[in-house]
């Protein structure tokens, strides 16, 4: 388990995403319209699509390749498709906006 400081909320647009490499793992950090920051592995369980590039709707993201919907809180793929994406713990310092990611 490694806890890392990975930049600031101001670096991610609302309803947007940024990626980051941790060892050989690519992680997508999302910032929802309510300001919440969530992290999942940047890889759709279907055909490996880059989730960071999908449309963010509420706390779900639509994979850009075949429109699978993934819940960013739980990593669960939404019906009628099935599967799960690994999620990672994120903390945001409310005072500074610093993002801490635990992998």
């Amino acid at each position, binding site marked *: 388990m490694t*806890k890392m400081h990975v*930049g600031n909320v101001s670096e991610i647009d609302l309803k947007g995403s940024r990626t980051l490499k941790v060892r050989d793992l690519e992680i997508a*950090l999302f910032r929802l319209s309510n300001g919440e920051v969530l992290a999942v592995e940047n890889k759709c369980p279907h055909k490996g*699509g880059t989730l960071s590039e999908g*449309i963010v*709707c*509420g706390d779900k993201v639509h994979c850009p390749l075949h429109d699978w*919907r993934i819940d960013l809180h739980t990593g669960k793929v939404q*019906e009628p498709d099935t599967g799960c994406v690994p999620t990672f713990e994120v903390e945001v310092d409310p005072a500074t906006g610093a993002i801490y990611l635990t992998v």
Partner: protein
Amino acid sequence: MIKSSRKKLVLVGNGMAGVRAIEHLLKLAPDTYEITIFGAEPHPNYNRIMLSSVLAGGTDLSEIVINDYEWYKNHNITLYTGHKIESIDTENKVVRSDLGVEAAYDELILATGSDPFMLPLPGADKEGVIAFRDIKDCQIMMETAKSYKKAVVIGGGLLGLEAARGLLHLGMDVSVVHISEYIMERQLDREASVMLQKELEAQGMKFLLTKQSEAILGKKRVKSLLFADGSTAEADLIVMAVGIRPNTALAKKSGITVNRGIVVNDYMETNIPGVYAIGECAEHRGIAYGLVAPLYEQGAVLAKKLAGVETQGYEGSVTSTKLKVSGVDVFSGGQYEEPAGSRALRYQDEIGGVYKKLVIREDKLIGAVLFGDTADGAQLFSLIKSGESIQGKERALLLGLLDDAVKSSPTARLEAMADDEIICGCNGVSKGAIAEAITSGGCTSVGQIKACTKASASCGGCKPLVEGLLELYAGDAAVKVKEGICGCTTLSRDEIVAEIKRMELKSVKEVMNVLEWNNEEGCSKCRPSLNYYLGMLWPEEYVDEKESRITNERFHANIQKDGTYSVVPRIYGGVTSPAELKKIAEVAEKFDVPLVKFTGGQRLDLLGIKKEDLPKIWEELDMPSGHAYGKTLRTVKTCVGSTFCRFGTQDSIAMGIRLEKEFERLNTPAKVKLAVSGCPRNCAEATIKDFGVVAIDGGWELHVGGNGGVHVRATDLLCVVKTEDEVVEWASAFLQYYRENAGWNERTSTWVERVGLDSIKKALEEREERLALQERIQTALSVTTDPWKEIVSNKKLRKNFEPISRTETVYQEG
């Protein structure tokens, strides 16, 4: 339930029949068995039928997996791939693999399938001699086609023709060798066979009929095939597709009764208690089947038996065949060879390429052959299976004039279909199973039916039928529940646009709030739609919401299957210069671009680019975006025209460049393609474009609503004008009228058909109207900027292309 108390079920053979039975069993009795599966191939369960489609280029190898490794894991199934079972100890109930793995069983299923029958010819062991049976064969064919030219397929049956079709697609020169006088003689009668041969010859296939193969010649690799009559055929690759043989060796040496296949009764039981056989390796009432539908029926019976569910047992199948991937529609079912005591009705239309034959005995339909028009195949097949009297209906059935109820609509046809009729041949899903998914499973979309039953999940050929069934069984529900533009609303496109105008709604969020969306932030369908409608309605004040645009439009590049992107700069009218080409080449070299390709629209595509390199490449290119990724003007294709061409009546290049400069960057409901041809020879293919211009002596024809893609459609002639200015005026008016009236993601081809050409002609007939539309399109265009330039010079936008690189570890455990 504790796992160890479960009975042990072992399946030998990880193919379609065996795994299908397991799937069925898991549905009926999910916690009864501890399941172990052995497969000889190094893959999870895949769809062997789809190998033809893989070769024919419609499908990727990765797409034909039916159950991926995840599925086995999720169902606690122990899977050994690459293991061949060498022995069964029926006394102690243990199987043993060639790699030394032992597994005990209470119940054992043999689903060992078939082996391709390899003709024992001298030289059959040479390099370049293969069968057409599994993924490996497919891979060899693809590899061979890269460096060799001549392929010979031995066997003119269903499998041979599909292999040959695939090899043609791979660019090889293909000859089909067949021992008898007629191809596919086991499924077709002579007339249909000859028609099929003509059709395939027209596609480039060659045939060597009544040829008996004698020997395969060559040194290390095959060079040619020698026939009994002394003639030879050159070959760099020989594919044997003469038939399959049930794979019974394991059963034989384990003391299980074997005839042609492993002998089973109606409950798929062999002579040894606790040992069953299904699929191509099994022989039931003297028949070993080689088609998928019977195997699925057997699997269903066995699953019921193992789950302790009542079953009538398996009573054999009437089979039907369809030839896939050759672009020819062929169907045959039942006994088509006119057995004793039967009579045949025939219909042949040489010009239309249609042939039909019905075989009737005692007023019952017992067989049918259809060629060129197989729409009635499913219905005829269900009549063959039901054995009902067709007295008085023969002529109507033959001519496809079904009785009133049935001919009135495709829905009635589906209604008339028997419940056990297989709708999806790839996954063996019956009409009954789909009906159940809709009526009791609550499926309300093709997507849900696919997820629930797998119907239409493979080749997709049965999708229209699945849609029809959905309409049939959920029709009333669908009528009651008004379909909105997506699942977030019940409002249609026109209602939404009208409300936005009426209430002057100015943002996506506002529209969703005011119009009571049931998803607070919408979905990937409505968000981009609303963004488009707002931009179209309020061009000067609406700020485009980039987070509501689809991926391609947010990154201004086309996302590819591996997550890389492609870059297509604008090349106006397809005209470039040495300096421009040099620049593109230098950029491609500097960034190590893996693939540089000409597009279909007369431009250059740089493919395989990492997201973070996109802005750098745009900067170096310093060319405008070609918008190859967006719902906007793509390209204006031109022919050489009067500049050089001896036939050119007008300067099509200049006209094309002018149109492209006029409309580039325009937001449209769907992609828009233009073309300008300099004479009626139409070398720029303007008549399959959204707006096509064809020069004639002294004027220009303007064509609209063409499409060369999914929904192929030739254009309709809108009008003929005299000057270049008029061309621009009409193009502006047409495009703006389309922008204001079409639904998001609706191409002009479908839009023109939906609203009718006349309504468009009427809207554009007054010059005053056209000028007003032209003014509005100019306003819309005036606020656009080049997206690449904008991103290159804007840090805030540019950051989204780069990964976060500033990270520091706070603490580390373990």
